[in-house]
């Protein structure tokens, strides 16, 4: 039974992708209906999967000796991320019905979205590292295709290529780590790596650990690869909500959390993870302070919040990171979709031209404020509990200065969040914009997510129990919802954090005069170049471009040269065989 459900959660979206494609672009209504139907079915199956969570593989497909069996293990970590991908995926698809209304080439759009959802679920469920890598690459490809969806816009194409190449750096890291695992253990199974990590040579293990860290940093847009995510905001907004806030960027966090028990003893690894998270959280928060593009500001805040999760893993709080991942996925998807309906309505992403939109769009304003309060970490909402849990663990298990920086980051978060709310929905109208109400499909998706922002933290106890019982290598601690509430409410750190958050929010209200709320001439160029790290990323992208251009010269199209290539390859193989490889 569990095997059937696992097959369904991967198979349904992929089947849907093909069906929507086959429905042809001449029938957009049918395509909308089919896409929503298949994504909702996937979401239902993913929720059913919670009942079948186990630490044993439920599907085993033998793939010969070289690859080992393709296994799917629905343990707590995998099931949680599956549910996030499927449920938020279905809401994003539902939102797209209004957002993409009247667009051309819906077949391509829905194909890529559904294909992505299936691949993301495969990525987290796979128990075989090699297939994890395959699914990882499929998600990168879909992300590229969707960022560049408006392929007549040069900015969208450039953003897509940048995202593709930078995440490929991560893909190479993952592949290198995977191959080292295979060379040492003779197996691609994740359970083998987790169980036998202590028997690996120290050098090999640390190489694997740091390759995986590079993979995670590139995929989750963490320092120093954090520049692709803001550029990826050229994608249609439901895509930004689904792929670049709620799911794909979590793959890196997932990777770190999954292999934390194997790598925690590697000298310097946990500290590096902590530092990567800390630096990302801080510089992204500073960048978000002065961003004028609504979606870019949200993208920076995504990088910053992912930084909090990475920091939590570095400090040993695997469960706290996953808890924040759940909260973040819900409230950030809400924020992005609400921003999407604003953008869809007024036709610009520039916050300097918005203002005073709250009167015309009260519903969107209300749900955006709910999301913003959760992002800032205001009590009762899910973001508050998970962020406080991370800060709590940071205070206990990381250096005091690191905790201080993260606390400062929480203040910055509150500041830029309320700045965004103010610029978009309050104040006076700065530009005459033609506003229309959000459609009903949009409202349903937003309403569900807003409700989720209020309630997902109530799943803490069940989620904790699920992860504790199905992750044999992680040695997590049991904790109930009541204990969470009492520890967080009684800890002085919480009140300190709330004070900082309140301070940040207060400053932003006081200074809410114009759009240049903070920063100025010295900060703008710094953020524009991503604190100098954009040059590193540009170097990688341009280097790949140039290498590809040089390499394309070998494709002469002349028969004689091709024959020469074939013969020399044959000779190389012969020599290798002769030398006795």
């Amino acid at each position: 039974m569990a095997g059937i459900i696992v097959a369904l959660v991967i198979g349904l979206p992929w089947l849907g992708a093909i069906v929507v494609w086959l429905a042809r672009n001449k029938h957009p209504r049918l395509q909308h209906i089919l896409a929503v139907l298949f994504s909702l079915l996937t979401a239902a199956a993913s929720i059913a999967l919670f009942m079948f969570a186990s630490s044993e593989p439920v599907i085993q497909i033998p793939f010969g000796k070289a690859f080992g069996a393709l296994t799917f293990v629905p343990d707590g970590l995998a099931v949680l991320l599956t549910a996030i991908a499927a449920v938020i995926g279905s809401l994003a698809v539902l939102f797209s019905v209004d957002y993409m209304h009247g667009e051309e080439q819906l077949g391509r759009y829905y194909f890529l979205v559904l294909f992505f959802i299936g691949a993301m679920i495969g990525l987290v469920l796979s128990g075989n590292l090699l297939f994890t890598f395959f699914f990882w690459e499929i998600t990168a490809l879909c992300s590229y295709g969707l960022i560049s969806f408006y392929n007549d816009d040069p900015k969208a194409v450039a953003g897509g290529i940048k995202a593709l190449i930078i995440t490929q750096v991560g893909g190479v890291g993952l592949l290198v780590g995977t191959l080292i695992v295979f060379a040492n253990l003779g197996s691609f199974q994740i359970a083998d790596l987790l169980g036998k990590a202590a028997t690996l040579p120290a050098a090999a293990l640390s190489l694997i650990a740091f390759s995986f860290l590079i993979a995670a940093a590139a995929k989750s847009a963490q320092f120093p690869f954090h520049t692709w995510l803001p550029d990826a905001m050229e994608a249609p907004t439901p895509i930004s909500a689904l792929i670049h806030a709620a799911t794909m960027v979590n793959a890196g966090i997932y990777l770190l959390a999954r292999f934390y028990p194997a790598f925690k003893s590697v000298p310097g690894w946990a500290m590096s993870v902590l530092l990567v998270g800390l630096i990302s959280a801080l510089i992204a928060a500073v960048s978000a302070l002065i961003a004028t593009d609504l979606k870019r500001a949200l993208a920076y805040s995504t990088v910053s919040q992912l930084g909090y999760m990475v920091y939590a893993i570095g400090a040993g709080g695997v469960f706290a990171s996953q808890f924040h991942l759940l909260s973040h996925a819900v409230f950030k998807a809400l924020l992005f979709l609400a921003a999407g309906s604003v953008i869809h309505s007024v036709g610009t992403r520039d916050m300097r031209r918005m203002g005073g939109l709250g009167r015309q769009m009260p519903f969107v304003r209300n749900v955006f404020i709910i999301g913003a309060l959760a992002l800032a970490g205001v009590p009762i909402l899910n973001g508050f509990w998970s962020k406080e849990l991370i800060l709590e663990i940071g205070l206990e298990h990381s250096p005091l200065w690191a905790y201080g920086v993260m606390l400062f980051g929480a203040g910055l978060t509150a500041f830029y969040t309320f700045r965004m709310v103010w610029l978009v929905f309050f104040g006076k109208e700065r530009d005459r914009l033609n506003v229309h109400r959000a459609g009903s499909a949009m409202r349903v998706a937003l309403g569900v997510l807003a409700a989720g922002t209020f309630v997902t933290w109530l799943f803490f106890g069940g989620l904790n129990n699920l992860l504790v019982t199905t992750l044999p290598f992680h040695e997590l601690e049991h904790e109930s919802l009541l204990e969470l509430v009492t520890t967080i409410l009684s800890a002085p750190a919480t009140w300190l954090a709330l004070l900082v958050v309140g301070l940040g929010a207060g400053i932003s209200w006081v200074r809410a005069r114009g759009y240049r709320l903070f920063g100025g001439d010295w900060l703008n160029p710094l953020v524009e170049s991503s604190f100098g790290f954009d040059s590193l990323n540009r170097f990688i992208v341009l280097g790949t471009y140039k290498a590809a251009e040089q390499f394309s010269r070998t494709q002469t199209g002349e028969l004689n040269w091709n024959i020469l290539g074939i013969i020399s390859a044959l000779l190389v193989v012969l020599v290798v065989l002769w030398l006795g490889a």
Partner: protein
Amino acid sequence: MTFTPLNIVLFGIIALLGVGFYGLLITRNLIKIVMVLQVLIKSVILALVLAGKLSGNLGLGQSTAATVIVADTIVAVVGLALAVQVRRRLGTLDVPQISSMRG
């Protein structure tokens, strides 16, 4: 190196293979390409028969060789027919020139 029958056949295979590859490397004329391909395939046929003999499956080797002979005759016929068409339409048999004429 002794001249056992095995060695002679092996030498023949390698020589034909070498001539075929060398021909493919340097030829520009379409008809000559078909010819050197034939030489290449002849070495393969010889290798098939030899492999049959060495593995004790002489019948299998020979029947495979016969199949390849039929197949490569078709290759030659189609190749030459194409060459005739190319010559008629483009007025040349020079491969680089034909390539440079592509749309």
